[in-house]
């Protein structure tokens, strides 16, 4: 049982780390700010989500697990809002460069 849980943790966290890498690659490779915004706010939130998922079985009790989920929800909320705000700010400045 324990081994199964550990394997789950390892798989989920590894997948999360890959998404973080994807976000960075996007940030480095995409041609303009709008596309970079995609890389940033989507890949990363998925990455953090998978890492939180992987850490859940290792969490200390219900409150610990709840806090982990809350962290993810808050970062999602922040990411979504920031994406909107930045996209608006970019559009005010003019077409993509």
């Amino acid at each position, binding site marked *: 049982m324990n081994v199964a849980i550990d394997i789950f943790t390892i798989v989920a966290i590894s997948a999360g780390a890959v998404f973080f890498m994807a976000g960075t690659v996007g940030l480095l490779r995409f041609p303009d700010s709008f596309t970079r915004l995609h890389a940033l706010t989507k890949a990363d939130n998925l990455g953090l989500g998978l890492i939180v998922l992987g850490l859940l079985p290792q969490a200390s009790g219900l409150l610990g697990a709840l806090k982990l989920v809350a962290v993810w929800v808050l970062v999602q909320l922040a990411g979504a*809002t920031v994406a909107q*705000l930045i996209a608006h700010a970019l559009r005010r400045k003019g077409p993509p460069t």
Partner: protein
Amino acid sequence: MSVIQALDIGLALLVLAVAGWTIAAREAFASVVGYVAYGLLLSLVWVRLFAVDVALTEAAIGSGVTGVLLISAVVRLRKTEAPAAAERPGVVLRALAAALCTVVAAALAAVVLLMPDPGATLAPEAGQHLGELGVGNPITAVLIAYRSFDTMLEKVVLILAVIGVWSLASDGNWGGVAGPRRGARPEGALAFLAQLLPPLGIVVAIHIVWVGANEPGGAFQGGAILAAMALIVLMARLTEAPEIRRRWLRLALIAGPAVFLVVGIAGFAIPGSFLAYPAGWAKPLILLIEAFMTLSIAATLPMLVIGPPDRPPS
């Protein structure tokens, strides 16, 4: 080299790289963004030093509230960058400064390397009386009991800073709405965030103050998070900042140190010295002080960030 050592070294290098960027960046805005990132990395370092209370403070104040202050300032000061850059000292002077700073850093590094291990410590003394105070977190005990005088004066410093900031208002604007005039209403997304975040933030802040008695946390950290929530509401223009002549605002600002002072003076009467807690009453008094301090910090920090009033009272 173990994994954790590699991680620590990587983190240290990253902190130094971001700090170096903050100093060396050509544009002031890049420098400020670097500083915000630096604050976040520092809280990771504090977690690695097992100083979670400090990490919480750094996360809430160093990265969050300071970030808002500096970013708004740098955007307003954009026009001053070019004239200032012209006053940059020459190569020789900079090389001299670099040499001096290297000497200072090297001396400090030598102190670090020569420091005795285990070093001098007050931890046993701090731990001794935790039972009498009814507090499990030794840092809270140091802040509110053993060195309570420091903490009280620090609250006074915060109020002095607010008075300093307010006194920079022009005469005609004294008593008006705090902060600069603001433009049109912002986008819906920000208003949405500002409505959703504060309830969650208030719960987290109360949690952090409450567990501060026994676990990492406390009035500073909780108050700083409450202050951040007030700031996001103000930034989203959901409500206007209060006029600085309002009595409730001034009461909120001084509530923390005032309650601290009253408890301190009452200490003369009952246990016999300033800021002493009567036996058996330590825990409730500590909670009382912490509650009012949280309120005061939550009122003070946003006032410091948004600045003096920019229009006369209505």
